[in-house]
Structure formats: C-alpha cells, structure tokens
C-alpha cells in the first residue's frame, strides 16, 4: 500500500476567519489537520521600539494600537507600570473611573469576540446584535475622550480629563439594558444544537497543558484554573469590588464561550459598583511635575507656566529601575515590563501580550481534528493580531 499523502495548504493571511493577518500552514490528511504552524508578524509595527523614542506620557497613544478592541486596557497597563516605577497612585475618583471604563472595555471586547466567533461558525445575526451594543460603548468612549476607538484616555497620574456632564446617566442607561440583551444572545446560542455541535468537546486543552503553554484569561479559566489578575494581584483598587471568577471544566470551545458570557455579567456587576462609587473629588495626583496645570492658571501664575512648559518640552523623569505590571485584560494577562535609566523616556518597554501566548497553544488544540474546527478554535481564542505582532 502506498503511504498516505498529506496536503499542505495556507489558511490566511487574507482569510476572513483568521481575525486579521494570521497565516496558518495546515498539513491535511483529507479533512484532518495533521500539523498546524502559525506564522505571525504581518502586523509588526515596532511599538516597543517606538516607545523608546517617546517621553513617558507620549507613548500612551501607541498602546491603543496593540489590542485595538480593548484600547483602554492597554493604556492602563502602561500607565500603571510607569506609576509603579514612580511610586504614585492616583486618587480614588481617578481609579474608579479607570475601573468603570476598563470593565466597559472588557464588555466591548467580548462583544466583538462573540459576534465574530458566532459568525465564523455560521450564526450571522448574533454579530449584528453585538455590534449594536458595542456602538453604545463606543459612544461612551467618544464622550470621555473624543475618540471612538483609540481613546488614549488614561494618563500617568490619572486621566486626561474628568467625565463630561451627563456621562453617568448614559452609562446607567446602558447598564440597565445590557443584562436583557445578554440574555438574548444566550437564547440564540447556549442551548442551540447547531452551536453545541460545533463547540462542545472541540479544541479542548488539559489544565496541565494550559499552564505549561502559559495560557491566561478566559482560555485558562475555561480549564478550571482560577487565575484572574484582578483577584490575585489587585490593581486600581479591584480588591474593593465584589465579583466572581467564572470557571469552566474541560477547556473546550464551549467552555471558553460560557466563561466569557459569564465574565460579561461580572463586568456589568463591577461597572455598576464603580458607578455607585463615583463621588466628586480629584482625578489626578497632586503633583505639578506630572500633571499639567489648568489652562486658566497659565495666564495668572508664573509657576503654572513654568510647570506647563517643562512638562511639554521635557516631560518627567522616572527613577532608575525596572518593574513588571500585569493586568487582567479581556484576552488574559497583559503585562508591561518597563526599564528606566532615570531619563524622561523609557529605556525599554516590553508587553506580555496575552494573544501572542494564547495563539502559541493553538496547534495543540487543533492537531488531529477537522479543518472546520480550526475556525471554531481561532474564534474561541479571541486573538487580536495587533497585539500579537505589536
């Protein structure tokens, strides 16, 4: 008998279900995937190199472009790392607004995941509903920062500006309608036999393998590992919020779906608490070396003028040292490693991008399975190539 011949095909980089410019080289035996080799780098923009040339505060807009579905989470990890190196913490109102907006960001990111994941598998209408809700959050982004997607709203030491008037009511209105909407999506998918056929038992990874491969976020929690950075190492006062960490059991595509759906409920819970905690107060640290003075003061106060000039012409210095700051981004553990040589620009910044690490585990999930499952697994990993390639 002649040996079985396998066929090698390219999936991507221009393939609608690879969520950007991911290229997979699949070795197929009929419909069966024998070997899967991801090729990345098509979206490499040198963000880490770019940050080395920018002053600390200037680098924030670059981070928006990493995980462009969750820009504020990226802002947050960079400003937290710089704040850790400086040894400062923003005041309570600033932190609460950060929590409120990053949780809305998580919902926004998960909505795109749900819509595209469902569409890849063939459920077209979910996509339209998800984008309807996402639109509301984009409007909220626009209200705080003037930008719908690349908000760059967080600053070292606090925020770019306080919330605009009427913002709380808009968030309140969204939070009131969202649980019912979430129920609608679940009604479309959770018990749907077609959905279950395509997801239950597909792309499973064991708990040990998940840890060995460095999987984090919903992918790791779907295997039953209760690792959530917000609980394990709270930042921005997350320890003051009541929320659960949803877990799965077998770590298949369906479990990852269930974990993310439950996470949206928890994010809604946190956002509701954050909204209730919003009391008037300062949003920025009271340090004129870090935070520019109010514009009106420039005409009256010599110090304010000097501080303003120094801040925009030189920036501020960060003490010599290195820090690693991790946050729970929608995709998993997003880390920023910052090395400062005492100057006004970072000596080195590195991002531990969760999508980069999660994608690496993909061959283990699809090898030995059908080609159609590859699409389901990519969707369930919720990768963003902007973050993988940086």
């Amino acid at each position, binding site marked *: 008998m002649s040996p079985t011949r396998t066929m090698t095909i390219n999936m991507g980089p221009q393939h609608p279900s690879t969520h950007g410019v991911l290229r997979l080289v699949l070795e197929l035996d009929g419909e069966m995937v024998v070997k899967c080799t991801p090729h*990345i*780098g098509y979206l*490499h923009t*040198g963000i*880490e*190199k*770019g940050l*080395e*040339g920018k002053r600390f505060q200037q680098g924030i807009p670059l981070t928006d472009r990493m995980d462009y579905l969750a820009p504020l989470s990226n802002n947050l990890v960079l400003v937290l790392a710089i704040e*850790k*190196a400086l*040894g400062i913490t923003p005041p309570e109102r600033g932190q609460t607004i950060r929590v409120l907006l990053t949780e809305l960001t998580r919902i926004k990111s998960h909505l795109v995941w749900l819509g595209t994941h469902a569409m890849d598998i063939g459920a077209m209408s979910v996509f339209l509903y998800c984008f309807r809700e996402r639109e509301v959050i984009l409007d909220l982004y626009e209200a705080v920062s003037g930008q719908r997607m690349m908000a760059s709203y967080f600053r070292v030491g606090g925020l770019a500006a306080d919330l605009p008037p009427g913002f709380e009511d808009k968030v309140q209105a969204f939070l009131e309608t969202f649980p019912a909407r979430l129920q609608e999506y679940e009604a479309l998918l959770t018990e749907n036999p077609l959905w279950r056929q395509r997801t239950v038992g597909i792309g499973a990874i064991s708990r040990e393998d998940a*840890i*060995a*491969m*460095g999987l984090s976020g919903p992918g790791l929690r779907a295997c039953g*590992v*209760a*690792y*959530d950075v917000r*609980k*394990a*190492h*709270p930042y921005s006062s997350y320890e003051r919020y009541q929320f659960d*960490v949803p877990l799965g059991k077998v770590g298949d595509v369906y479990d990852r779906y269930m974990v993310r759906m439950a996470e949206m409920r928890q994010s809604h819970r946190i956002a509701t608490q954050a909204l209730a905690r919003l009391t008037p107060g300062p949003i920025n640290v009271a340090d004129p070396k870090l935070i520019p003075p109010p514009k009106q003061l420039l005409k009256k106060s010599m110090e304010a003028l000097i501080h303003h000039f120094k801040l925009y012409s030189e920036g501020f210095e960060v003490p010599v*040292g*290195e*820090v*690693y700051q*991790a946050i729970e981004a929608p995709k998993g*553990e997003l*880390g920023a*490693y910052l*090395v400062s*040589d005492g100057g006004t620009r970072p*000596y*080195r910044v*590195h991002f*531990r991008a969760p999508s*980069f*690490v999660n994608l*690496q*585990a993909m061959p283990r999930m699809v090898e030995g399975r059908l080609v159609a499952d590859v699409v389901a697994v990519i969707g369930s990993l919720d990768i963003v190539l902007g973050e993988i*390639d*940086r």
Partner: protein
Amino acid sequence: MSEPQTRTESREEAQATTESLVLRRLHEQFGQALLEVKVWRNETTVVLASQHLPQVCRFLRDDPDLAFDFLSDVTAVDRLNLPESSPRFEVVYHVYSLQHGRRLRLKVRVGEGQAVPTVTGVWPTADWHEREVYDLFGVSFEGHPDLRRILMPDDWEGHPLRKDYPAEASPKWWEEEPA
C-alpha cells in the same frame, strides 16, 4: 490548588515570603549560581549565571514550596547605552506561581554571539518568547527546538530592538531602490 480569592495572606505578606523563602531556597541549592539579588518596588530580581539557568528553573518549577509553574514572559534588554553595558544583553524571565501567587524575575547576562540555554524543556511556552528575543535582539538559545525569526521576515537583516538599530528608516534605504 487553592483559589486566589480564598488565600489568606495579603499581597505584602506574599511578597515578603517571596523574598525570604524563595531566596533562601535558591541560596541553599544554587549559592554559586546567584550573581546578584535586587528588590525594588516590591519586586525581586535574581541574576543567574547562564549555564545554571535550566537547573534553577526546573528547581523553581518542581519544588512544592515554590511551584513556579507559570512562565509569564521572556524578553531581553540591550544594555548598550546603560552605565554598566557589559555583557551587552540581559535576558529577562518573569515566572509566576499560580498556587502561591508569587512573582519572580530571573535574569541572565550574555555578550554578543553567546547563547543562552533554552528553558523550553521546563516551560514549553518559552518557545515563541525565545524566538522573539532571537528575532529582535539576535540572542540565540541553545537547545531550542525551532529557533527562527518570528515577527520579522526570514530574510531580514539586523535585529530591530538593539540600541544601535535606527528607530526610523534612514533615507539611504530608499535611495538604493530603483526609481
């Protein structure tokens, strides 16, 4: 495994144990391999002699009191423009213990052209991280199963995150292109 939210020790206590317990165990086992220990902003950094790296990593992962089972990240720093610039590269490992909630930073220093032993045998997730360091810094990893560029094209020249690599394209790159 104990769940993070039910752990009783606070973050400060956990960090204090990292410093005492982890460092004590490392000193007992690998006294001569530890070149430097630093603590800054509650983060512990241990600089190792590179030839001992795989044994130390295996010990950190397998010792039940330490159980650093999760490798968060591997990256590197080109120290060319720092006051202390020799050896030139520092490869940085961020390891985490899911069970104990502790983080630890390991470092090895290597010069131009020297290889670092791979840790893919200890944490398989190191595979892509090490490829990224190889690609962007030109530091090679001995024993790595598949060491090739990952972000840059295969035929790329140079290693972009080195400090002597320009951040912007110089005009001469374009001049060489036929009009």
